[in-house]
């Protein structure tokens, strides 16, 4: 469905993409996971034909993003990271506008967008600018789908959106996937990676890894422990001094402490108590995507 070969893109001295290559299969829900500045948006703009790569080649549905851009644009759906609908048009006017551009009508494609559009239909006379964040997002997705695209590019659709709306949004994506639409999505939220069929971890214009989320997690090579105590900030500092420490990161309720060797948890606990820590708890953990990402990041940073 999508083929990317050695794509480079620079802006002045900044190398936004440093030779990205990968393939995305038809019907896949594929995620680019990485922080701001990783190159996600640049890559998306190349794939939807809004930016010409400096080097390399990309095709979407066998259409070249540079040479066949006119045909390509009629067949893909794109939801940019910034809300780009007309704020002073109503919900309905925005939809009709996008339908008109693609020479279709809201009525013709109502079935496809129905599950999403229904949730905002009661507000169809409201101006887009006056919608809440979650509703704007649903309208933008409806507009991106209005011409029944075979592939959908969603650039950080859930950034700045609360946890409930994020969950609902991913449920919508799962149902679109069932209808056979290929979905390419980017996100800075690591936990959303688990919801994709395959993911690419991207950082500083380079791919750290590409695989099914579980396979990436399985490659995590350290022993990982969750540790908590009364004073978490002091705990992190003490753990970093530990001779077995590979990394120690705050991680919600626990500190995630990784080591290259298997540790005696009772002994570790006793050591922490002897430094004055209170209510110490040590558990053994399985890594998650965020652990893997930070590990890969730290490794590449050390090489640089």
């Amino acid at each position, binding site marked *: 469905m999508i083929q990317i070969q050695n794509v480079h893109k620079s802006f002045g001295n900044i190398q936004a993409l440093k030779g990205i290559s990968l393939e995305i299969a038809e019907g896949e829900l594929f995620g680019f996971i990485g*922080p701001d*500045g990783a190159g996600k948006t640049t890559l998306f703009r190349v794939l939807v034909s809004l930016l010409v790569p400096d080097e390399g080649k990309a095709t979407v549905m066998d259409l070249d993003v540079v040479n066949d851009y006119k045909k390509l644009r009629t067949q893909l759906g794109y939801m940019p990271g910034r809300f780009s609908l007309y704020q002073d048009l109503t919900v309905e006017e925005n939809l009709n506008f996008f339908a008109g551009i693609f020479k279709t009508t809201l009525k013709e494609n109502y079935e496809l967008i129905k599950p999403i559009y229904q949730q905002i239909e009661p507000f169809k006379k409201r101006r887009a600018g006056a919608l*809440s964040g979650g509703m704007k997002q649903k309208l933008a997705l409806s507009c991106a789908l209005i011409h029944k695209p075979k592939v959908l590019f969603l650039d950080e659709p859930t950034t700045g959106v*609360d946890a*409930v709306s994020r969950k609902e949004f991913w449920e919508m994506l799962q149902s679109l996937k069932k209808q056979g639409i290929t979905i390419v999505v980017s996100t*800075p939220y690591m936990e959303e990676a688990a919801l994709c069929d395959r993911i690419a971890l991207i950082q500083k214009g380079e791919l750290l890894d590409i695989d099914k989320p579980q396979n990436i997690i399985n490659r995590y090579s350290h022993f990982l422990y969750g540790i908590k105590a009364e004073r978490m900030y002091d705990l992190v500092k003490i753990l970093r001094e530990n001779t077995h420490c590979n990394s120690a990161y705050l991680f*919600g309720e626990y500190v995630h402490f990784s080591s290259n060797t298997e540790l005696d948890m009772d002994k570790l606990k006793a050591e922490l108590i002897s430094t004055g820590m209170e209510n110490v708890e040590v558990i053994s953990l399985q890594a998650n995507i965020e652990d893997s990402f930070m590990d890969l*990041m730290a490794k590449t940073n050390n090489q640089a």
Partner: protein
Amino acid sequence: MTNNQTNTKAVVVKDLVKKFGDFVANDHLSFAVDKGEIFGFLGANGAGKTTAIKILCGLSHPTSGDVKIAGYDIYKQRDLIKKNIGYMSQKFSLYDDLSIAENIRFYGGIYGLSRKKIKEKTEEYIEKLGLQAYTKSMVKELPLGFKQKLAFSVAIVHDPPIVFLDEPTGGVDPITRRQFWELIYKEAANGKTIFVTTHYMDEAEYCDRVSIMVDGRIEALDEPKKLKETYGAQSMEEVFIQLARG
């Protein structure tokens, strides 16, 4: 509010109501934040968080209710409040086309710091945040993570007892996000009160106490551990989803 309470509390809010026309954005909020506490102020988009924060920072008037920030009254002592708080928004408030030192000098100047003090702060921040390589650069050339740490430092350049952070960690990589929280912990350990909003539910766990707003009201307020017990949830994310979905 007794004097006793204002001595140990950084923020005291009692029956705060804010209406826009018929719409009730803040519906009788009452809560207090202890000095030195890290207080998480959570809620879905549109729940009324930003409205409340603007009032607490003295940028907007409540429709009714009492608010005291650092012991100062929100109606009568807004200027004193502004001197005693720091504020960092998700958009930051650094000037992109000024250098690091110029940004610090600008904010230091606004808060009336002496030249000597501004020089000290500039050296301290460059050293502490590891910005040595960027002293000649304009702020727009800084990687996002550095910008964020600098925005935080600038927000507390006048050493306020309370700092408000509105989604400070959006978009940064997971390592930088954690480094930012370590900065927060450090300031809290020095006695600063931290009032923070976030959409990352793991960050709710870093707070001493968390409030969750739904439709203009505070639906829950407690330590993360107790909230999880109360709602029979494994994580703060579950607590949040239960409450916000209603």
